[in-house]
């Protein structure tokens, strides 16, 4: 067969299998057009696929069975072989004395005299004899006849779980019921100190009456033994990482396997983290996350806890009441009506640099957003993210999905359906699949792949994001070093062999998210964040010999970078001109020039293979502030991108930043709104700030400048504008807050690490407020007692916040299990930890990373009570936070205090942007 033709056959074959059976035939007919022979080929292949049954999955050649059907061993007559593996053969046999069926397990013929295996068989008999549990297949005794020796076991009728799953995922309630019984079996074993070590669907049977039986304790050991160190035994896809490495194991290895089994039941797929069905309850997602923790120290320890979680999930699954169903319908309807119309202004020609003569061609037409475009190597397809933002979408509330479409006017096809945040899809070199970055629970940045023709996404590379191919066998991507958030650029083969760092940001909190190698692979363009803001882009030598130099427009933030195919030009998305547009610069020493213009913004630099066009995302972002109180909800701002509201006294004034776009997503001018009169006013005209804090008396503001670079640092100003603003520091300080009386608390980077400082309002008395370094400062309590910080290092792989005392006192960890992000767009979203200005309550935002749910818990605060007394349950996760005395819950995130307990402010963001194809200037 011709390779091209064969390639075509297999492509259609895969695409067809990815579709429902019902639509397959029509699809194949369509795809083959009038090539009848092609169609016959494909159909024959699909038919064979279905007919093949277990062909190739079971041994192809005749095995030598140890026992013949019809033969006897002791008083048992062998009936048939039930299963065979390296560790044994299991037969169904008839017990002539008791007139019942039993299962007999013997060693495979060629291992019959293997001392180690014999010892293991005896061990299995002893361990099983110690177990007597309805969810574990029992042992009846040992049968011996001549040299043959076998275990006589309870015969369990019914399919194995593996057979059940082969016909598809198991519905949630049933899967949880099965999982509950498996947990019972494991619990019983663990209580006797027995670890199963080979828990997998093929070792679990489900009887017709629904009873679940765990089988095959052939690899089981006693907990105290820890297993044979250095020898790997078990079944690869279900083995815990420590077991796969041949290390000593304990009961937590079964917890991992249990997680694999539960996940496989729910997804129908053998992968410890295939996307779960959308309706999977949060409690189950959390349970899986805790079972499938790679580090056993972090993993859930007790099966009893699993049982408890499963019970609460089963309880939640009880059918909803009629009223709540009606409410759900109403919400769905109102969401459908909420599409916002926005007019686009296309690129216009200007007289400045050479500009596009051809009008931009619109490629998508969504009422939300299409971002992160990438073009297939042959230029026929474009993939993109729908629903996200261009900055890292981390922590966003909307679900974002990977799409693909044929250029220019094919239907967009959705390829993913899971709730995780995603970005940066790219095509594999053979264009058969799309690999994208997903932010998984625990702030893990992983690469996933999905076939272009559709199909279940599969993990591609863990701890790898912003991935691009360098030829067929090599990759360039971002990797987090040392479990924190220190992300740099590395290159390796597709198997992660020959891995080599190219660039890591100097600061531990820096994250180099994206990269592009020059066509000759001598240079790499790096897109990085630091202190929660995008930096300018960077040009780094591919050999990693130096940290390189900033490149592109230097006075702006750079969010994408790429090369022309001849390596002559570098393209950037940058907001250097005040808003995001596309720029280019001749390699190596040209002058940056802006090439797209207009009132809308453009981000994304996907060049078409012919080098003549650019696909970019064009649109607008808006953000508004709403007030919710006893009288209802009303919108307080409607123009532009408003953020970071502060309200001092009920019904008085609200301050907020209105983005000017001059430098960064999170910077703007300070406005005040008089709630009584509705009059708006620029509080400090011309001052662009990244963060601000209003004094308790409402008279002064301390802010960090985001205006001209010469203004960088901390400033104070009177809000009545009678005296000019005064600059207190001239460094990289990007967050500052009023603390105790006459005091300012801020974060600064004097050398290579960041520390907390305090100073007086006149800039004198600068001193370090804490001895240890941090990666970010979130907020400071109005009484100046507490700073909420992001630690420099994660603790036990978890990213939490810490409340550290500025005056001595025990620290408290917050949000450890509900991962919080202290940087990036979150700074805009509002700090998830917010004191009301009267200092009497704290708003804690809980955002389950990537899971699309979030809420805010309001807790009472008092200066004169230790935190441990005030919040006895602690702040580690949602359960803890909400169980504290006096806690109230608001079912949304991005909530800010509104100066009275009965009201709050909400911050809401919307994006409308679509993909456009733009002719590049010559």
């Amino acid at each position, binding site marked *: *067969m*011709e*390779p091209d033709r*064969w390639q075509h056959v*297999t492509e259609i*074959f*895969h695409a067809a*299998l990815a579709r429902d059976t019902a639509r397959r035939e029509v699809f194949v007919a369509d795809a083959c057009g009038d090539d009848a022979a092609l169609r*016959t*080929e494909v159909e*024959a*292949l*699909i*038919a*064979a*696929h279905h*007919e*093949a*049954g*277990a*062909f*190739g999955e*079971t*041994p*192809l*050649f*005749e*095995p*030598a*069975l140890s026992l013949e059907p019809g033969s006897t061993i002791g008083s048992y007559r062998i009936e048939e072989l039930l299963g065979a593996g*390296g560790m044994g053969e299991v037969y169904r046999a008839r017990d002539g004395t008791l007139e019942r069926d039993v299962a007999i397990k013997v060693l*495979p013929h*060629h291992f019959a005299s293997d001392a180690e295996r014999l010892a293991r068989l005896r061990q299995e008999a002893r361990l099983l004899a110690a177990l007597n549990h309805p969810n574990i297949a029992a042992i009846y005794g040992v049968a011996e006849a001549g040299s043959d020796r076998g275990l006589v076991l309870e015969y369990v009728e019914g399919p194995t779980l593996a057979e059940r799953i082969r016909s598809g995922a198991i519905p949630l309630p049933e899967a949880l019921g099965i999982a509950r019984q498996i947990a019972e079996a494991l619990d019983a074993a663990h209580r006797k100190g027995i670890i199963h070590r080979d828990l997998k669907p093929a070792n679990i049977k489900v009887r017709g009456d629904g009873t679940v039986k765990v089988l095959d304790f052939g690899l089981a050991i006693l907990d105290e033994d820890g297993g044979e160190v*250095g*020898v*790997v035994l078990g079944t*690869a*896809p279900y083995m815990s990482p420590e077991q*796969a490495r*041949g290390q000593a194991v304990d009961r937590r290895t079964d917890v991992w396997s249990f997680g694999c089994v539960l996940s496989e039941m729910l997804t129908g797929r053998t992968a410890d983290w295939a996307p779960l069905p959308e309706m999977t309850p949060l409690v189950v997602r959390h349970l899986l996350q805790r079972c499938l923790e790679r580090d056993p120290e972090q993993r859930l320890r007790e099966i009893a806890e699993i049982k408890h979680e499963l019970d609460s999930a089963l309880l939640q699954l009880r059918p909803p009441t009629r009223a709540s169903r009606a409410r759900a319908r109403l919400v769905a309807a109102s969401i459908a009506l909420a599409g916002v119309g926005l007019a686009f202004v296309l690129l216009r020609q200007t007289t400045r640099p050479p500009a596009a003569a051809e009008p931009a061609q619109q490629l998508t037409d969504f009422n939300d957003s299409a971002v992160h475009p990438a073009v297939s190597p042959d230029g026929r397809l474009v993939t993109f993210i729908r629903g996200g933002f261009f900055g890292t979408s981390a922590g966003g509330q909307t679900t974002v999905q990977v799409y693909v479409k044929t250029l220019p006017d094919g239907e967009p096809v959705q390829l993913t359906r899971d709730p995780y945040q995603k970005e940066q899809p790219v095509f594999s070199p053979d264009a*058969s*699949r799309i690999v994208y970055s997903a932010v998984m629970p625990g702030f893990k940045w992983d690469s996933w*792949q999905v*076939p272009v023709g559709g199909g279940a996404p*599969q993990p*591609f590379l863990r701890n790898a994001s912003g991935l691009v191919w360098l030829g067929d*066998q090599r990759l360039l991507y971002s990797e987090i070093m040392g479990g924190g958030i220190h992300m740099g650029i590395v290159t390796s*083969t*597709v*198997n992660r062999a020959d891995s080599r760092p190219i660039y890591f940001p100097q600061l531990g909190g820096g994250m180099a998210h994206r990269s592009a190698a020059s066509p000759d692979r001598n240079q790499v363009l790096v897109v990085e964040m630091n202190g929660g803001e995008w930096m300018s882009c960077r040009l780094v030598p591919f050999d990693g010999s130096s940290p390189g130099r900033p490149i592109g427009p230097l006075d702006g933030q750079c969010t994408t970078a790429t090369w022309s195919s001849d390596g002559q030009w570098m393209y950037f998305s940058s907001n250097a001109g005040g808003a995001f547009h596309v720029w280019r610069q001749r390699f190596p020493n040209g002058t940056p020039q802006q090439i797209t213009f207009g009132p809308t913004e453009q981000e994304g630099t996907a060049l078409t293979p012919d080098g003549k066009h650019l696909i970019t995302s064009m649109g607008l972002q808006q953000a508004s502030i709403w007030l919710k109180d006893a009288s209802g909800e009303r919108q307080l701002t409607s123009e532009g991108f408003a953020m970071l509201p502060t309200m001092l006294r009920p019904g008085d004034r609200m301050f907020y930043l209105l983005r000017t776009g001059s430098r960064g997503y999170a910077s703007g001018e300070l406005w005040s709104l008089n709630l009584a009169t509705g009059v708006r006013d620029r509080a400090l005209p011309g001052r662009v700030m990244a963060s601000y804090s209003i004094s308790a008396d409402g008279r002064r503001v301390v802010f960090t400048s985001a205006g001209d670079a010469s203004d960088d640092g901390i400033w104070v100003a009177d809000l009545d504008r009678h005296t000019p603003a005064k600059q207190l520091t001239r460094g990289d300080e990007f967050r500052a807050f009023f603390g105790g009386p006459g005091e300012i608390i801020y974060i600064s980077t004097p050398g290579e690490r960041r520390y907390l400082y305090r100073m007086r309002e006149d800039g004198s008395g600068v001193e370090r407020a804490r001895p240890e370094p941090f990666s970010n400062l979130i907020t400071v309590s109005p009484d100046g007692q507490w700073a909420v910080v992001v630690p420099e290092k994660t603790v036990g792989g978890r990213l939490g916040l810490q409340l550290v005392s500025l005056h001595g006192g025990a620290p408290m960890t917050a949000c450890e299990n509900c991962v919080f992000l202290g940087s990036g767009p979150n700074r805009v979203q509002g700090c998830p930890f917010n004191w009301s200005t009267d200092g009497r309550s704290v708003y804690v935002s809980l955002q389950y990373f990537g899971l699309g749910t979030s809420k805010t818990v309001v807790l009472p605060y008092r200066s004169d009570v230790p935190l441990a007394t005030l919040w006895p349950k602690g702040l580690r996760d949602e359960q803890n936070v909400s169980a504290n005395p006096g806690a109230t819950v608001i079912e949304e995130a991005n909530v800010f205090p509104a100066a009275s307990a009965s009201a709050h402010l909400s911050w809401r963001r919307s994006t409308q942007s679509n993909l456009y194809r733009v002719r590049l200037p010559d």
Partner: protein
Amino acid sequence: MNGVDDAADVSVLLQAWSEGHVDARDRLMEVVHQELRRRAAAYLRRERAGHTLQPTALVHEAYLRLVDQKSTAWQNRAQFFGVASQIMRRILVDRARARKTAKRSGQWARVTLDESLAEQQPGYVDVLDVDAALTELASFDARKGQVAELKFFGGLTLEEMGHVLGLSVATVEREWQVARAWLFARLTDSGSRRGT
């Protein structure tokens, strides 16, 4: 070569090969070939009437004997099975040819397979039929040929195949899906419908 040193030797060879020493691979092939041949012969001597050997079991036995499991990385294990399944195929084919068992009736294989479908019993096929079909598949799609060889003669898992071939598990799975369907069609009646 005595048995105790074999284990150390093969482990070293695997390591050397993984570090890029190509001649280590040739030497490894030699050792594995000897071992597998010897095992196959021994096995056949104690074989009971009517039973033939099961190649995947033999390959695993050879691994247990030849490789020091405590010092061998998982990836090297995959490499071993990659080599061993290739050799196993050769041994089986040689043996079948030499014995001229004349079982090379495609008819036999087809009937067995078809019956097996009806009864959901494992189906067994003739080694020479499989060999011919694999060779044909490899002639226009080398990678799929390789995947099927690893599966049939080495009993490798998708993950192990991924390591041997330098492919992601998902790619291997896709390759295997097609190879399996094509081979099934080729080895049964449905092959003739296709007219290739």
